[in-house]
């Protein structure tokens, strides 16, 4: 049987999103981020977003452009540049609300949402200021006896992080939304896809389902069309983050991006050159034409 055809464009994806939505973004730091869809959000009128992410430049861009009202993260980093400068500025200027979770707690929140339970228990967070500065994160007492036979243990109830939409980027996909990752790590993309009401998947290449096997073994097929509402073919779509083995991070571009946090003028210049473009095609053409920026 032919699989359903869910192909659309980045701008079609953005048309499905609404102000105030909670949006999960896959990848990790500056690694395999669905940047072409993030760029489409930056071109749109969307606002007041809550962004859930193991954050990188996706979070930085949505903060700097004023699209993000709140950021729920395990960290926000550019990897080779440890501190994301735009997120830093937003935190220090008080222009974004933050929920900074233990990295594992964020995963549990996505799992809880995926499994449709209100929380998952964990020891992570107990004794730390996660519980002091974010009192909305509650604890729960085990109904079972403790290891010494006494009262049950107190644990953190990592809250479910239900997403209105998730955006993820894969190396390959078919037109129905089955995704294939060919790099070393899927990160939380599978949990994101199941924690969301609707997931939009971009991929370097959209290929016939029967061709997945030419690219990787069955273990690389970890996103099911069951959980995907739309598929965008986005060659170089994760630029400037890495998308191995298709391409590495564009470090020169990332440096230019990081430098744009230095002043309002620098940000305006970056925006003008790289973001205020008519389309993703224009962006990719500008990247291809850039001198001195070879990977």
């Amino acid at each position: 049987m032919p699989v359903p055809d869910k192909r659309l464009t980045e701008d079609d994806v953005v048309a499905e999103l609404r102000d105030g939505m909670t949006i999960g973004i896959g990848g990790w730091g500056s690694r395999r981020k669905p940047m072409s869809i993030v760029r489409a959000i930056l071109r749109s009128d969307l606002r007041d977003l809550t962004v859930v992410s193991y954050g990188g430049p996706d979070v930085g861009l949505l903060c700097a452009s004023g699209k993000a009202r709140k950021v729920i993260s395990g960290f926000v980093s550019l990897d080779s540049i440890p501190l994301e400068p735009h997120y830093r500025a937003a935190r220090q200027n008080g222009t974004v609300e933050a929920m900074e979770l233990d990295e594992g707690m964020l995963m549990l929140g996505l799992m809880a949402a995926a499994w449709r339970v209100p929380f998952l228990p964990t020891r992570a967070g107990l004794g730390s200021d996660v519980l002091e500065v974010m009192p909305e994160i509650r604890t729960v007492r085990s109904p079972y006896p403790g290891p010494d036979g006494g009262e049950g243990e107190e644990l953190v109830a990592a809250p479910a992080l239900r997403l209105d939409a998730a955006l993820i980027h894969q190396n390959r996909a078919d037109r129905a939304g089955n995704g294939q990752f060919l790099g070393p790590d899927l990160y939380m993309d599978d949990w994101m896809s199941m924690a969301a009401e609707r997931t939009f998947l971009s991929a370097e290449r959209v290929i016939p389902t029967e061709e997945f096997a030419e690219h990787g073994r069955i273990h690389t097929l970890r996103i099911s069309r069951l959980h995907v509402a739309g598929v965008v073919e986005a060659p170089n779509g994760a630029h400037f983050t890495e998308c191995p083995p298709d391409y590495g991070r564009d470090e020169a571009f990332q440096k230019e991006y990081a430098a744009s946090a230095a002043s309002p003028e620098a940000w305006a210049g970056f925006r003008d050159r790289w973001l205020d473009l008519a389309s993703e095609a224009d962006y990719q053409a500008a990247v291809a034409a850039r001198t001195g920026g070879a990977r």
Partner: protein
Amino acid sequence: MSEATRDEICVVAVAECFRGDGERLCNPIGTIPMIGGRLARESFEPDLVMTDGFATFTTSCLPPGTNPYRSDDGRLQVDAVVEYWNPYPQMFTILWNGRRHVMMGATQVDRFGNQNIACIGDWYRPRAQLLGFRGAPGNTINHTTSYFVPNHTPKVFVEHVDVVTGVGYDRAAALDPETSRFHEIRFVVSNLGVFDFDTPDHRMRVRSVHPGVSVADVQAATGFELVVPDDVAETRLPTDEELRLIREVIDPADLRKTEVKP
């Protein structure tokens, strides 16, 4: 072999943190911690399991800063001997399971071993946003943790940390005993000395000072009163074989000297 320099003494002090760990995930974060962990495995603690810094456990002795992944005609290749696939979701499972000893950095650390890497100032409106909580809360409550501080000053060793990311002994003591049963802050290694919490109320104690450093130097660089035993040892010097491993095998590019001045 020329004489050991301070960075190399730090490497050996870090390696000593993992002595006795056996078959456990040795997970040092940072340049000198990574070199020290590798040194422990290459010498006296051969059963340690170590990561490639990304998504595998590798038996290869990768120099710090190595990224072993590359594309071979569009296929992912890893230039290292891989013994286990350990992507991030699996790392959380490993650490909650407990067979791990992590060495993290600390922007601030206090007398009970509370660590801060999140931000400086009020968390709600930080003066300087740093890394956030990252994995510190989960690490410290689930398995053994040590810290490495390359620049020992009163701004790092503080009376009270601004945000508790890694849980110290006073915070752990306030929890149910069974809740904190996996908590252990083993050592803090700095460019001046080695510290432990082997005191009745788990206050930080001077375990050894590096050659050329006095207890008074260490106290002057610390923003709280350290517990000082009657006899403070000197941190041991690297052996000739350890110096050879550090200089020729593990860190031929001398990256350790960018973290601690020789």
